């Protein structure tokens, strides 16, 4: 199992917390209730289904006061929320896999309109062949259209991050939609001990809702939303450029805001998570492996065992994947001499994992910053729901260690090919 055990709180919990046992999908639903959205739109798709069922049950039980829209498909799910957000609603939904693909047209548009919609992606591998199992392919496929995307390692992190996502999205320096990615199967159905924050404390954390101060469909302040850009010269393209630059600025601002919000969360609730990049036993490491999502739990176990065997290996976990935390990652990479990157999805164009592809850009920055190159290689594992075990990670560690003395292979290593 790669579902990680809950970390012990690093400091005394100042807030009232209820301890419960729940799966990741329920944790996400409880977090959504804590964030008090006005509107949720739902459509079931495996392995997300139980998440929206939990949301529906919370509303039906009167534990959550939100307008629930059972839309006829994911395309309308996100569209309903866009309308709601433009009218001032705090909004939430969840999806994955083919549902996310079907949603892509309004999905692309959400960041352009700067709507702070929060959406869980209960990550699922892509077709074909047909697979209803976990994998990061869905979220990776839509990484380039201006949503903030964060990945969770544990069920507790799912709960805490989902609440934080609303605050990050609605921050006036960000105003972008946020995906909270939780691994299908491993986190969605992985049951774990979870501390549930007190509602009043979360209310104080969230502050005043203000989601459409910048763009609104409101007869009290009429405006035309999303005008056409006229012509291919002059004001049309320059307007377009301002939209795009604004989106990029919001993405870059989010790196700071994500850190601030995580810091505030830690102070209020006593649980601290690395906001962008987590380092594990890295300070005296010669080389490191890099992970994303729930696989990190097994990876850390493997690191501990390797350390016990005398290997000087550490781990870098990416939490914030979009925007890619270039500076934070560069800082971590400066501590090591070789890197192995484990992806749970495929980058078809570069014949490697997508996170590895992103990291290669940072490796170039590393060369320009340090004057020396950092040998690296790509591993692809955990496709179609496969488990990446401690054993797999020992192979990753061994192969990465070899980069200290041997040339790096061009081809990726497919971890589960002979399972």
């Amino acid at each position, binding site marked *: 199992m790669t579902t990680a055990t809950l970390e012990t709180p690093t400091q005394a919990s100042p807030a009232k917390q209820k301890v419960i046992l729940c799966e990741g999908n329920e944790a996400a639903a409880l977090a959504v209730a804590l964030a008090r959205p*006005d*509107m949720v*739109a739902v459509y079931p798709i495996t392995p997300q289904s139980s998440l929206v069922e939990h949301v529906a049950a919370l509303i039906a039980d009167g534990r959550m006061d939100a*307008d629930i*829209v*059972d*839309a*006829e*498909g994911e*395309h*309308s*799910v996100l*569209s*309903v*929320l*866009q*309308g*709601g*957000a*433009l*009218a*001032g*609603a705090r909004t939430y939904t969840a999806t994955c896999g083919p549902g996310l693909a079907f949603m892509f*047209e*309004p999905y692309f*548009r959400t960041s352009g309109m700067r709507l702070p919609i929060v959406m869980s992606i209960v990550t699922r591998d892509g077709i074909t062949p047909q697979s209803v199992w976990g994998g990061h392919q869905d979220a990776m496929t839509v990484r380039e259209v201006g949503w903030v995307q964060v990945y969770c390692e544990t069920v507790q992190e799912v709960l805490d991050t989902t609440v934080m996502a609303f605050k990050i999205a609605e921050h006036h320096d960000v105003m972008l939609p946020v995906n909270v990615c939780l691994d299908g199967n491993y986190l969605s159905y992985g049951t774990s001990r979870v501390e549930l924050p007190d509602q009043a404390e979360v209310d104080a954390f969230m502050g005043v809702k203000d989601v459409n101060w910048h763009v*609104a*469909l*409101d*007869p009290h302040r*009429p*405006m*035309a*939303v*999303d*005008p*056409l*850009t*006229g*012509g291919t010269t002059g*004001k*049309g393209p320059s*307007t377009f450029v301002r939209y795009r630059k604004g989106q990029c600025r919001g993405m870059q601002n989010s790196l700071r805001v994500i850190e601030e919000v995580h810091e505030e969360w830690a102070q209020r609730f006593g649980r601290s998570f690395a906001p962008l990049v987590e380092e594990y036993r890295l300070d005296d490491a010669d080389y490191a492996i890099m992970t994303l999502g729930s696989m990190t739990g097994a990876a850390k176990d493997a690191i501990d065992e390797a350390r016990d065997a005398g290997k000087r290996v550490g781990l870098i976990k990416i939490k914030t994947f979009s925007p890619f935390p270039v500076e934070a990652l560069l800082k971590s990479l400066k501590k090591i001499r070789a890197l192995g990157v484990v992806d749970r999805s495929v980058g078809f164009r570069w014949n490697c994992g997508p996170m590895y592809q992103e990291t290669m850009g940072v490796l170039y920055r590393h060369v320009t910053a340090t004057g020396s190159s950092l040998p690296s290689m790509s591993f692809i594992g955990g496709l179609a729901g496969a488990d990446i075990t401690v054993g797999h990670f020992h192979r990753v560690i061994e192969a990465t260690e070899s980069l200290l003395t041997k040339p790096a292979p061009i081809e990726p290593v497919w971890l589960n090919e002979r399972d």
Partner: protein
Amino acid sequence: MGKSYNTIAFDSAKCDGCGDCMTACATTKTGTDDKTRSRIQIVGSEADGFELALCRQCGDPKCVTVCPAGALTKNFDSGVIDWSDTKCVDCLLCTVGCAYAGIALDAGTGHVAKCDTCEGAPACVPACPHDALTYITTSRIYNEVGDWEDLFAPGLAGCQGCNTELLMRHTLRRVGPETVLATPPGCVPGMGSVGFNGTTGTKIPVFHPLLTNTAAMLAGVKRQYKRVGRDVTALAIAGDGGASDVGFQSLSGAAERNEQILFMVVDNEGYMNTGMQRSSCTPYGAWTSTTPIGQGTGGMPSQGKTQDAKNLPLIMVNHRCEYVATASTAYMEDLYDKLDKAIAASKRGFAYLHVYSPCTTGWRFPTDQNMEVARKAVETNFVMLWEYNPTDGLHFTHSADEPLPVTEYLKAMGRFRHLSPDQISHIQGKVVENLAFVKQMAHREN
């Protein structure tokens, strides 16, 4: 703004001089069947046919001006010129002053007599067996709408002769400023509803949905206002392509959920804004830029669209919406009545209004013929005007009996110019079939 009044209109082409109107008037006003005492007189014209001698209830009445006794006065409430028997001195000067022979001596009383429109229910009009007389009651549209603010700026960039600008302006005047307007890609935003480069022609909140998600986005807007207790009208003015093809799923879903929105489709039977391509609302046989006319291969010439149009309003009826209606800008009174009902229904649930909109550019007819083409569509039953609500079922709002042959419609425009006799008979057959189908629904729903 001046005031408009209802009036009796006469279509000389339909009149055969039977005199039934005169009999009805004489009976009502004198208790006799003496046509000479009727206040409406049908007279032979210098050319073949007939003319009308009847009071026009003039705005600048000469009869009033010439009367030395103050017996004739313009009533500014009803619009009728009233005659007072206590003041009249029977000098008959008024009969000389009137250019329309609209006031004349009634030999039975010895006084002049003139039409008073029977207090708004003229007896002559229903008596005409040929519909040559019509009582035009559209004055309320002018009087009401003229006082409402035009919520579009002047100068929308529509094609010359397009009726959609008319529809947009009138609809927005009617729904008023507490409205959020969705105009998905198509002619309406092409005319500048949302605007270009940050300027807009619309004075209320307006947005581009995607072509695919109009009903869903608008539902989200409406739901949030409902949640916070604000009465905001959610209105879509969409084209037929987006509604019937790629946007149909979100339309159907919103209707099924009975979202409280008013969805108006402006049906110009194709993707006219993007260059006149076929939609599923394009009728059989029509030329479009993706159903062009050509030799084809293997002896199979290309002769326009080979399928019949999807009947979107009937599909919406089967969603059991709060209100569904078809309308035409050639019948504005009917359209206005339906707009009122649709707005009211949209406060309870999903309201759908399907307005047929002849496209002078894409259908290939002269720019001054838009209303005539729209009227011919109805007169031939190519388009039928009806309305539906779940309580009263489906009703015709304009008689579909005694239609003109469909060729009267087809020949009015270039997109049907190539039709073979077989194609024309297919279309005529479909008109008959459609009428039978809607009549069945009207029967069943009642």
